[in-house]
């Protein structure tokens, strides 16, 4: 139980940091601003406290309690700063628009409740998560929680289960276990659920601020209407956190918050190796499409990127990685035409297998695309977001092409999760590029909907921080 409180402490710290330094509170609609603050707070709070815990375990193993006091001091300092500089509450000028937006909000809550009930059954049946949870992510958390020299076993070359993988999730779970004085299975369960909530909040809030309230709620529903995504939450793998960081980074770039976007992209790189590819693609696409933001995005990404590079270059140097063992002899593998067809076929069947019965998570998106259609004034956003998704898929394709492992085994054990990681970014790319229901005269525009509709019609920049 105490471990759970420390997980929530990290969320509170992240939320206060975002509230104080990013300033979403000024965005409209208000509910979306709070969702953004919560989503960014979860992602940033977990990432930041994980990094601090890991670095202090590494640098000052003899002073195990220093990170907790540092976090408390930071929380008190930020809390006091917010209290000291508090302003009168802004008068919200947004109403919910009309009845349908209220119904959409209720639908999101219903879908979340249904998903949570299903997950509760999974948590009870499999509290330790699926295979990779206890053989990789939470195993390394147990090492990190030990402290001293023994914590270095989390990346020991003799550890059979991917000692070269990044440590954001493992270090956060270890942090909560250490602070809570118990290695409770509730901590990794709560961590994965918090990331789902963050992903939901970022998608709904981000789309609502960028486009319209209804698209925001529909984006949240689309996340909760993807069984493949939801199924990964109780698995306790790092794919949902990675998907959350990737979608968050993309949305914050679109929202003209490149520093925060860069921070989240770098945290993706500290979550899973695929995040390293995302970080490179993210910065390259930002340079290509949003050149004036690239320096700030790079500055945001720099601190955690240094940690990732140091980890890979120093701590796990020489430990075989998927890429490292795939490069020798890759020329002979890329010359085999059958591998291309095999991978293409697997991508197709992997996408098809996101279905559950007659349902496929693409159906709601197709309904919206068919009726709302793409907004030509949002072409740049579509190219930017869709380009990131396309390059990520191309990167995954290349890795499969050159892998020295058995290709069938590699595809069967990983492709489904790679698609889950990217799915939120796909949803953002689609939904951010559609015309808004509000702009299509589905009801009299509310006070809150008008500015967004105007923004969309003029293709003005996304809202800036006020």
């Amino acid at each position: 139980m105490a471990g759970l409180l420390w997980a929530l402490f990290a969320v509170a710290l992240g939320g206060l940091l975002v509230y104080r330094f990013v300033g979403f509170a000024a965005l409209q609609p208000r509910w979306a601003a709070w969702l953004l603050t919560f989503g960014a707070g979860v992602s940033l709070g977990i990432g930041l406290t994980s990094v601090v815990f890991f670095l202090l375990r590494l640098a000052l193993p003899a002073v195990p309690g220093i990170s907790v006091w540092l976090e408390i001091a930071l929380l008190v300092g930020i809390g006091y700063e917010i209290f000291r500089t508090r302003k009168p509450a802004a008068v919200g000028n947004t109403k919910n628009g009309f009845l349908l937006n209220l119904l959409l909000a209720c639908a999101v809550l219903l879908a979340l409740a249904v998903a949570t009930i299903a997950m509760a059954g999974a948590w009870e049946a499999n509290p330790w998560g699926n295979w990779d949870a206890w053989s990789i992510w939470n195993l390394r958390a147990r090492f990190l929680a030990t402290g001293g020299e023994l914590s270095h076993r989390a990346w020991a070359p003799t550890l059979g289960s991917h000692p070269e993988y990044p440590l954001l999730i493992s270090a956060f779970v270890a942090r909560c276990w250490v602070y809570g004085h118990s290695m409770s299975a509730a901590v990794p369960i709560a961590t994965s659920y918090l990331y789902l909530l963050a992903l939901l909040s970022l998608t709904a809030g981000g789309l609502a601020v960028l486009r319209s309230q209804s698209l925001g709620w529909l984006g949240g529903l689309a996340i909760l209407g993807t069984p493949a995504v939801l199924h990964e939450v109780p698995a306790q793998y790092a794919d949902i956190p990675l998907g959350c960081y990737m979608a968050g980074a993309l949305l914050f770039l679109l929202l003209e918050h490149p520093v925060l976007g860069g921070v989240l992209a770098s945290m993706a790189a500290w979550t899973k190796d695929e995040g390293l590819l995302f970080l490179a693609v993210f910065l390259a696409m930002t340079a290509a499409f949003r050149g004036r933001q690239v320096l700030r995005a790079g500055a945001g990404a720099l601190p955690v990127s240094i940690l990732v590079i140091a980890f890979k270059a120093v701590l796990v140097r020489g430990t075989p990685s998927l890429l490292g063992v795939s490069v020798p002899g890759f020329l002979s593998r890329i010359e085999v035409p059958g591998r291309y067809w095999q991978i293409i076929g697997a991508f197709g069947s992997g996408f098809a297998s996101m279905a559950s019965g007659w349902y496929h998570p693409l159906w709601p998106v197709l309904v919206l695309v068919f009726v709302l259609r793409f907004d030509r004034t949002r072409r740049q956003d579509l190219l930017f977001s869709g380009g990131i998704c396309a390059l990520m898929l191309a990167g995954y394709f290349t890795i499969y092409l050159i892998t020295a492992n058995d290709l069938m085994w590699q595809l069967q054990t990983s492709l489904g999760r790679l698609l889950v990681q990217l799915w939120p970014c796909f949803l953002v790319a689609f939904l951010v590029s559609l015309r808004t229901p509000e702009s299509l005269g589905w009801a009299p525009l509310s006070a809150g909907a008008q500015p967004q509709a105007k923004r969309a019609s003029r293709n003005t920049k996304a809202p800036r921080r006020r």
Partner: protein
Amino acid sequence: MIGNEATPLSRPLAVKAAVVLAALTSLWGAFEYLGFESSYQRQYADPYQVGAQFSRFEAFQARVPENAVMGYLTDLAPGSVAAEAMFGSAQYVLAPRLLEKTPAGHDLVLGNFAKPGDFLTLGLPYGLRLEQDFGNGVVLFRKESR
């Protein structure tokens, strides 16, 4: 599939219908997940019995120091799913003790057996002496001093 924002459609009913349909379809997805996850968990409730390993290794943990680096010996076919699951779940429960998948080159070796057997004899080819049998297929071997 590209629309023109400058000339908004005057078909609010179709737009409303599309939004409602998209929302209902997503809800359908959430309920599909509920059905899928429930039957999945009924079929695969702790399939590798990770939870059971905590009590199975309790006495072993008390005996072996946390900083131990141990060899490993099992009666399961190397590389099989069952062997990997037994090794992985043992490593998870015993951490921070470190297991290496070979009995060679270690003073202490964990014997993790799926079936009852003559564990004493199983250790002999590797120069291992049975130090303690904890029951339930959990055995501590020690390298014979020469």
